[in-house]
Structures are given as structure tokens and as C-alpha cells.
């Protein structure tokens, strides 16, 4: 099996895998678009290996493989930063939800008290399952 055939097969499988993930709603569109883009670039590269040499010459990289490594690393960096940003947003959202929940819980308690409902054992918050500390 020639190296090029192997590369082409890998690129096609990757592309199909991404589309399948998207189709099954395992990945949301905003995350999968990037990976489909990557898969497409790999696909083009696999079918036209000379393209890499030409691009490397244009941007002034002597050894074409270095271009691949550099671009690949850059891509991973961008993805990591993007995911960190998403996690930060999620944390903020979960903080707001936790606050809302606490406020609503307190409101229910006070309404129950005002309505003269029988005193129930306090609804103690669940132990923090993640066990993370603040800060």
C-alpha cells in the first residue's frame, strides 16, 4: 500500500467520522465546523501532495514537513484556547444558575413558612460532587 493511498484513506475516514458525529448530534455544529475544515485540508493535501511543497515555498519554509508540524500545533493551540473560553462561559453560567437556585430555594422556604406549612427538615445542599475548591 502506497503512502499516499494510506493518507487519502485516513483523510476520507476523518471527514466521514466528523460528519457522522455532527449527524448524530454528538458534537455541536460550532465545534465540528473547524474539524471538518481540517479534514478537508488534509484531504486536499493527501490527493495533491505537490501542493504542500508549493505552499511551503511560498511562505518560505525550507522543509515542507515543518510547515505541517507548525500549522498543526497552531491549530491545537487555537482549539485549546477556544475550549478554555467555552469552559469559562460555562462556569459563569453555572455560577449564575447556582445563585438563582439558592435564591429560589430560600423564597420557597419563606413562602412555606408564611403559609404555615409544617416545618420540614432543612433541605441541606448536596455535597459538592466535584470537590473543587474556590479560586
Amino acid at each position: 500500500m502506497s503512502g499516499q493511498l494510506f493518507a487519502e484513506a485516513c483523510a476520507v475516514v476523518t471527514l466521514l467520522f466528523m460528519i457522522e458525529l455532527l449527524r448524530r448530534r454528538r458534537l455541536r455544529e460550532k465545534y465540528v465546523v473547524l474539524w471538518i475544515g481540517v479534514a478537508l485540508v488534509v484531504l486536499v493535501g493527501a490527493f495533491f501532495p505537490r501542493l504542500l511543497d508549493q505552499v511551503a515555498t511560498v511562505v518560505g519554509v525550507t522543509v515542507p514537513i515543518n510547515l505541517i508540524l507548525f500549522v498543526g500545533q497552531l491549530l491545537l493551540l487555537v482549539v485549546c484556547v477556544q475550549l478554555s473560553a467555552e469552559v469559562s462561559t460555562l462556569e459563569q453560567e453555572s455560577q449564575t444558575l447556582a445563585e438563582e437556585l439558592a435564591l429560589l430555594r430560600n423564597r420557597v422556604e419563606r413562602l412555606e413558612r408564611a403559609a404555615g406549612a409544617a416545618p420540614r427538615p432543612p433541605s441541606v445542599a448536596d455535597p459538592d460532587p466535584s470537590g473543587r475548591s474556590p479560586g
Partner: protein
Amino acid sequence: MASLQDRRVLIVLPAWNEAESLPAILTEIRSHLPGVSALVVNDGSTDGTSALARQFDVEVLDLPFNLGVGGAMRAGFRYALAEGFDAVVQVDADGQHDPRDVPMLVEGLEQADVVIGARFAERDAYEVRGPRRWAMKVLAGVLSRLARTRLTDTTSGFRASGPRAIRLFAAHYPAEYLGDTIESLVIAVRSGLTVKQVGVAMRVRSAGRPSQHPVKAAVYLLRACLALGISLTRRSQIAVETEVAA
């Protein structure tokens, strides 16, 4: 003392696993400050803090998991805003803040939107050394210039907030590391609120003291400076916050 009656004051106690020290501080609040509302924000405790607080005549907010002091305080500010309180006084549940100083802090709200109970002002009984002290000095210097008033203890959690500060903090109280002390001051000043400090005596915590370990203190210094530096460069938020404060 007049202003304690004039204002609807809410004492907010952020509590994370403070079952040991909470009863003492709540008893003190009840005996020294009768009639003042208190709110315990149980910050995801696992030691029965919530059940304990309910034995006292206080309201309790149960956060489902640990958010840190910033998150607990923002919940407290939102509660105060919803219930129409005019002043929020943050008192640590570990017992290092003396509830008898609360009236003095609230009185200070006549002249400023945020009043900090500073342990280095006048009544000193608390000593810190090394990098932690330098960090405090640097922070105090920068924030004093920013707030155009003398601030010596900017990381003190013992503080009172007036109505304008409550409105601002209910929406914009930072939950990051040290955000509840340093960055909240920066946000307040940037939004046109006034800050002042009054001297208070801090007591030894009922459980544990802040670490004096040099490495930990140095990490604290770096993180504090980072927190300050980053919050100082945040200009884009100010427009939004001024609207809230107005």
C-alpha cells in the same frame, strides 16, 4: 448608631464549612445587633453548616456547590437587592470580624458607597510579614491612588456596601481569585462609587490563621498583582457598569 435604625441593614456571612465557628458569630450578632437581618450564604458546605444556621433566626441561602466568596457574596447582594435592603455588611463566618464594629461601618456609608473595615488602621493587633505584607502594601498604594482616599487594607473582607454599591455588585461581583476584594474595589471606583475605610480590630480566627509560608505568600503576591493588573486594564466594561450604578 442612628444609621443602623435608618437603614435596612443586611449582614451577609459567606460560609464554607464553618460549622465550628458559625454558632459563636451568629450568637454575637444576635446579642450585639438585635433586629438586624442576617443572611448565611452556605457555599456548598459538607459539614452541616446549613442545618446549623437554621437553628438561628437568620435566612439561609444554600448554594448547590462551592462558588468561592465572590459567588457567595453576589448571591447575597442579589438577595439584598430583591428584598430592598439599603446596606449590606459582609462579615466572615470564621469569627475574625467583630459584629460590634458593624454600626461603625454602616455609619461610614453616609460618606461613601463602600466602607472597608481595615485592620491596619489605628487599632492594630494583627501582624503580617514578608511577601504577603509587600503585596498588601502594593495593592493598598495602587488602590488608594485609584480611589483618591487612603486605603491600607484592601484585602479585608469586612466591608459595608450602600444602595448604589448593592445594585452594582448584584450584577458585577467578580467570582475570581481575590476578585471579591481587589477587583470589586476597582469595579466600584471605575463605576464612580466612593470608597473609604474605617479602622477595626481583627480577631484571631476561631479556626486557623492565614498561611505565612514564604512560597505560598509569594504565590499570593503574584496572583494578587495579576488580579489587580488585569482588572485595571478592563476598560470596556465600565460603560455597562456605570449604567447599572446610575
